């Protein structure tokens, strides 16, 4: 997982809960990197899991809620850091449809070693429903969910999301059926 995700997570914890909390979860976790993250580096995704679990225990909030909140926060940060990917999109569905074939392609140009999840996006004929399928071995569908909610909030849309778990033994597959209200 790219270091930018870790940097953003630490920044979110610092800005939301304070430096004592961020320092505390890093110090209390046995991290191979020691909690020193650089955006251009690559780290094991298990470090993020460890940090989230530590935060969950520290502030007594369930892990999925934290990961989802981080996803929403990350969307805002991505929008601020990489505005070019959001240009020309009038709504969230249009943007979400480009993640796999445009955004991830560009990310891989910069970071060929980035381990990215697969997304399969299909739009209904009337454009009101988006079938967004998440495939990953890392089990971060809550993060994807949070990112999607961040997108809906950004475009000021009310979207109903139905979640269908299609996971297999070795891979998490989650179908998000998003319907605009």
């Amino acid at each position, binding site marked *: 997982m790219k*270091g930018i995700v870790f940097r953003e997570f630490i920044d979110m914890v610092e800005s939301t*809960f304070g*430096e*004592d*909390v961020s*320092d*505390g*979860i*890093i*110090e*209390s*976790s*046995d991290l191979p990197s*020691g*909690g*020193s*993250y*650089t*955006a*251009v*580096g690559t780290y094991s995704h298990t470090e993020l899991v*460890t*940090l989230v*679990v*530590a935060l969950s*225990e*520290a*502030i007594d909030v369930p892990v999925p809620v934290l990961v989802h909140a981080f996803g929403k926060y990350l969307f805002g940060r991505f929008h601020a850091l990489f505005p070019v990917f959001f240009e020309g999109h009038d709504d969230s569905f249009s943007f979400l449809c480009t993640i796999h074939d445009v955004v991830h392609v560009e990310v891989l140009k910069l970071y060929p070693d980035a381990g990215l999840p697969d997304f399969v996006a299909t739009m209904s004929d009337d454009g009101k429903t988006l079938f967004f399928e998440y495939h990953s071995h890392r089990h971060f569908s809550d993060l994807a969910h949070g990112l999607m909610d961040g997108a809906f909030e950004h475009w000021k849309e009310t979207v109903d999301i139905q979640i269908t778990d299609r996971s297999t033994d070795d891979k998490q597959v989650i179908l998000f059926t998003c319907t605009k209200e």
Partner: protein
Amino acid sequence: MAKKAKLNAKNTVSPEEKINRLKRKIERERKARATAEAVIEEQSRRIHIANEELSRSNTEMELKNEELASTMTKLTSVELQRKATTITLGVAVVLFVISEFAVEPVLEREIANSAALVMSKIAILGLLLPTEIIVSRLLERQVTNVDSINEEMYLNLLLSAYEDGIITDMERTILDSSRRQLGLSKRVAQELEAKLQATT
């Protein structure tokens, strides 16, 4: 699993704890910077190797281009020389027919002296040879006019480069290199490019 971080229990943080926390943060940032520098160094090394590889490929391509240009020029030259030979042969046949059926009967009729007749025939033959040589040279001059061939080749390269509407740095480098190999001046190349731009 991380040990439970008892963080919020502390309402007040002593200055010493605060200093220690900041020191740890600085240390983490320092390590992160060192990691980032190592990543950048590694990427720079890869870029350097890729550049060297690219440069090597470019040199090889230039050589191949040169060989190709030379082969094409030779092929075109051989083709035109073949045509020149055919035409020269045709001219020789025409001259022979004229000499044999138009000039010689007249000479045989007019010149009684056989020695003079032979001399006249030799003179006619002597006239045929330079005629053939002149015709052959004229045609070969056309053959050796490689400039137009090279300009056409450069124009084809320009067309390929402009296929997507823009010329990238890499395409410009290849074009410049090809221009030098084809022996075209910058002015000629610019004129060809301007002509192409005007037509597209």
